[in-house]
């Protein structure tokens, strides 16, 4: 058994955009440009970045639903980067995924019972009925919820259903892609507390992807900041937040509005200062060029 839950080395993923011309092939997009990091067993690891930074591509590769162009991903010592789908079953038992939008990630025509049991059916487990009831209780839903459909639940309850489904095969590793960004503030706190409970009680390793630095700071021990397909900074969450080293992290941290900062007198001009400077610099470059 490996000491690291996840070990990523020199991960590169290139896409080809659809062609825009009859004679030339489409341009190549480099979504990941050599990403390396480790996630220790039992660690709560955050991945932060803005849209287009490659964090979703990275997560898809970790979940085994996409393949890297080069580089390796080991999950629990198993190299998954080159494996065909039929040999990914050990990965699916070990690692499960919770997605952002519970409305589009739950099949509207399936009852909650079947949604939660689906990973068990796929892995031909038995005794599903009791397991589903147990899972629903674990995420704070009543057992009667099993007979209902996703549209009968609120956003927060739907996200609880997604979490129950992910936990069904008793995974060691939980990947979460922006699981609370579609939720209201009061429900967000409930779901974050549930994730904390489950991670502690079940001893899970958590990989939490978000654009929201504040949520990652609350939930994660360590964080990797991504920009343009690269990890630009990693470290203990508190340290990265309080004393960012990379210029991109500094810009990111400076732009986050908080109530504390606002009450201390921070204005929108303060938050935008770095962005405005970057725009001025670009404009100057253009005029000199």
């Amino acid at each position, binding site marked *: 058994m490996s000491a690291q839950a996840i070990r990523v080395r020199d991960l590169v993923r290139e896409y080809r955009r659809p062609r825009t011309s009859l004679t030339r092939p489409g341009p190549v997009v480099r979504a990941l440009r050599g990403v390396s990091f480790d996630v220790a067993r039992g660690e709560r690891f955050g991945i932060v970045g803005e849209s287009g930074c490659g964090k979703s591509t990275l997560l898809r590769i970790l979940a085994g639903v996409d393949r890297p162009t080069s580089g390796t991903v080991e999950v629990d010592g198993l190299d998954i980067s080159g494996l065909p789908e039929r040999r990914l079953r050990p990965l699916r038992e070990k690692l499960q995924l919770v997605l952002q939008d519970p409305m589009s990630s739950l099949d509207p025509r399936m009852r909650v019972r079947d949604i939660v049991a689906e990973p068990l059916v796929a892995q031909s487990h038995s005794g599903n009925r009791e397991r589903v009831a147990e899972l629903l209780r674990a995420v704070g839903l009543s057992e009667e919820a099993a007979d209902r459909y996703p549209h009968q639940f609120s956003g927060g309850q739907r996200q609880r259903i997604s979490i129950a489904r992910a936990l069904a095969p008793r995974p060691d590793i939980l990947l979460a892609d922006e699981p609370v960004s579609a939720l209201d503030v009061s429900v967000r706190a409930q779901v974050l507390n549930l994730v904390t409970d489950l991670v502690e009680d079940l001893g899970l390793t958590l990989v939490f992807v978000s654009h929201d630095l504040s*949520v990652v700071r609350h939930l994660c021990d360590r964080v990797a900041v991504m920009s343009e397909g690269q990890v630009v900074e990693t470290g203990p969450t508190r340290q990265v937040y309080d004393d960012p080293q990379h210029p991109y992290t500094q810009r990111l941290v400076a732009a*986050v509005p908080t109530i504390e900062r606002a009450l201390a007198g921070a204005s*929108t001009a303060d938050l935008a200062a770095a*962005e*405005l400077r970057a725009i001025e610099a670009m404009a100057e470059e253009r005029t000199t060029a």
Partner: protein
Amino acid sequence: MSTVPVVDDTAPSRPVAEPVLQVRDFGVRVGHRDLVREVTFSIARGERVGLIGESGSGKSLTALGVMGLLPEGLTATGSARVAGVPFDLVGASERRLSTVRGRDLAMVFQEPMTALNPTMRVGDQVAEAMLIHHTRPDRASARRAGVELLDQVRLPDAAALARAYPHQLSGGQRQRVVLALALANDPALLVCDEPTTALDVTVQALVLELIVRGVQSRDAALLLITHDLAVVATACERVLVMYGGRVVEAGPVDRVFTRPRHRYTQGLLAASDLLAVDDRGRLATIPGSVPPGGRFPSGCVFRNRCGHATERCESLPPWSGESAGDGFACHHPAAPDEGWGAGGRP
């Protein structure tokens, strides 16, 4: 301690700026169900007011109702007056509303792609806004003014960018085009409904700053609707808290965000504070979730989720506090110095 100008409706003896927007006893109904009720507030010239609340609290319906943009089947009641507009916006015909919308009052919504015409160059769209309201004499001067507006929202190389189509721009650039469009006719009131929710945090900072600059330089009033308390705290001077279709608390940002009185405001602040945790590392929560539209309890709309609720809360709590612009509607309010969060933060 507050230096924020408080619009005071109840004490006319105090000198106050003439309100740009005055909303009185405003409501939105569908059939016999009330979605928004008895909303009363005003915004002074140059004042920036935030409207916060969770989804389903009625904040967007309030804004849409004021602008006469309610979906089919929903009707607005009460009154909404804008300075310089001789008629009440509630009940006005579409024909009259269209003469003031985009001129005296303008809006920015969450999704810029739905506000822009995908088949028209963005410069032409900004110019069109001015030509429709005859605020520029001819097409050439409107185009020039359009490029200038695009430059004001810090779009790179505005003259060239004016010839781009919306799909060629990024989300943040599109939202800046929409902002330029909204500011084109120097409106007295700018309404922004979740303008930065779909944007990255660095782009959000920029767009918020451009909104604040835009209204400041025009001495316009801003109504900023968002679920993000930190955004309101940063961009606004005064805040209205909505829940269950009612304004449950209002006041200067630094009062409401440090000394909330309504139990809902207090709970919302505690739940959104990701730095304050209990000794087990858990966040403060509000039990339950927001009921679907119109299905809030009678009396105090928050009573089925409130830890302080008693039988008394079955009756509607009256507005208490200093004035209509600074007060709350709660039978069991937090003490003035109670703060919020586990440790009585901040």
